[in-house]
């Protein structure tokens, strides 16, 4: 594994992007930063600007309005970058599957590296998912 990727996996800075979620997943993401879970132990930081990010956390069902923004933002992440779909909405559109407003799921729009199901997923589940992602990327190369 190259040094570049190794360093990336040791300090993944996450950017959090909501594509029309009900806000519950977003709150659970913020829970990961609290003293009980403290993801800074693994070097993860929540960054405010997309240009600083390494991992894109996407929540929500990708409605028509937000898809355009999602594409623009995905193009602005400095590569290499990873995408995590958080929640059933982002994974498969969940209860909005038949909605007129959510034509395609997230993984038909941008490549997704890991799915974390749940409505909303627990913070433990998110941390477990990200650990799996790190193992997958670290092991495959």
């Amino acid at each position, binding site marked *: 594994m190259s*040094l*570049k990727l190794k*360093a*990336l996996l*040791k*300090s993944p800075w996450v950017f959090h992007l909501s594509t029309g979620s009900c806000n519950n997943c977003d709150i659970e993401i913020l829970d990961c930063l609290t*003293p009980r879970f*403290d993801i*800074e*132990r693994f*070097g993860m930081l929540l*960054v*405010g*600007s997309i*240009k*600083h990010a*390494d991992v894109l956390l996407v929540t929500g069902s990708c409605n028509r309005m937000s898809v355009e923004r999602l594409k623009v933002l995905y193009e*602005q992440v*400095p*590569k*290499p970058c990873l995408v995590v779909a958080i929640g059933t909405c982002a994974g498969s559109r969940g209860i909005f599957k038949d909605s007129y407003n959510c034509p395609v799921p997230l993984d038909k729009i941008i490549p997704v590296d890991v799915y974390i199901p749940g409505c909303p997923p627990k913070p433990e589940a998110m941390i477990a998912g990200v650990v799996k992602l790190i193992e997958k990327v670290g092991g495959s190369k």
Partner: protein
Amino acid sequence: MTFVYLLVFGFAATAVLGLITSWIDRKVTARVQYRVGPPFLQPFIDIVKLLGKETLIPAGASKGTFLIAPVIGISGVIAVATLLWVNQFFSEGFMGDWIVTIYLLAIPSLSIILGGFASRNPLASLGASREMKLVIAYELPFILAALVPVINAHSIRLSVIIDSQAGGVFAGSLSGILALIVAILCVQAKLALVPFDIPEAETEIVGGALIEYSGPGLAIFRLMKNMLFFTLPFFLIILFFGGLRLNGINILWTVLEYVGIVAIITVIRNTNPRVRIDQAVRFFWGPMTLIAIVAVVLALKGL
């Protein structure tokens, strides 16, 4: 020889110590919030990772200035760190190197302003203009506070300031204590830490001037800030505590002084909310300048 000083002391030693300082800062912050905090090597890994990422240049930005700004900033820090190290351990320095130090310490802020305005982003411009106001606010009290050791030592050379504290440090006198308090608060603003992180303000202007930087540019800016986090307390130790003394029991004192200053800065940053830019300007031009003037007058009287 100059090259060795620049590379080994100005860059390498300062960068390593600066990154360690930033780890102390993050760890103490985490402990204050009952968290565990990042592992020891985290700041190094962050820099390596950022160096490996893609550089994105925003459409319509002025490309040359955007790319050169971090380099200007880090060369300023390297120059000032070299000056301090050389004065500390090797030679006599030259007449008026105190003035040069004060000048060079303003360059990192200037580079952030340049980078912010060059990136053609409204939030970055806002951050840069706030940084500019903050520079105007804290420079006056900072220079006044740094003037106190000059008056006490009757010389404008850093090496003389260090030598004249062999008998007793300036922080032991009344004027020295007042000046030290002002200087620490100015350092807080120079490092753009809470409560004076107005130019960066993650929650309102998402990173301010650095918003458009990615990859190596951001890495250099971060490294510059971390190096500054070592250089500024080092400058204060030279001015008020007689420099780094590495003989016998004094090593312990030096480490205590350094960690003490860093810990004070970190605790201030963790226990205060962010102020507005007008409040910051009023704070520095009002009470801080007054205290600094009092300290200067006391120093002239020999107290």
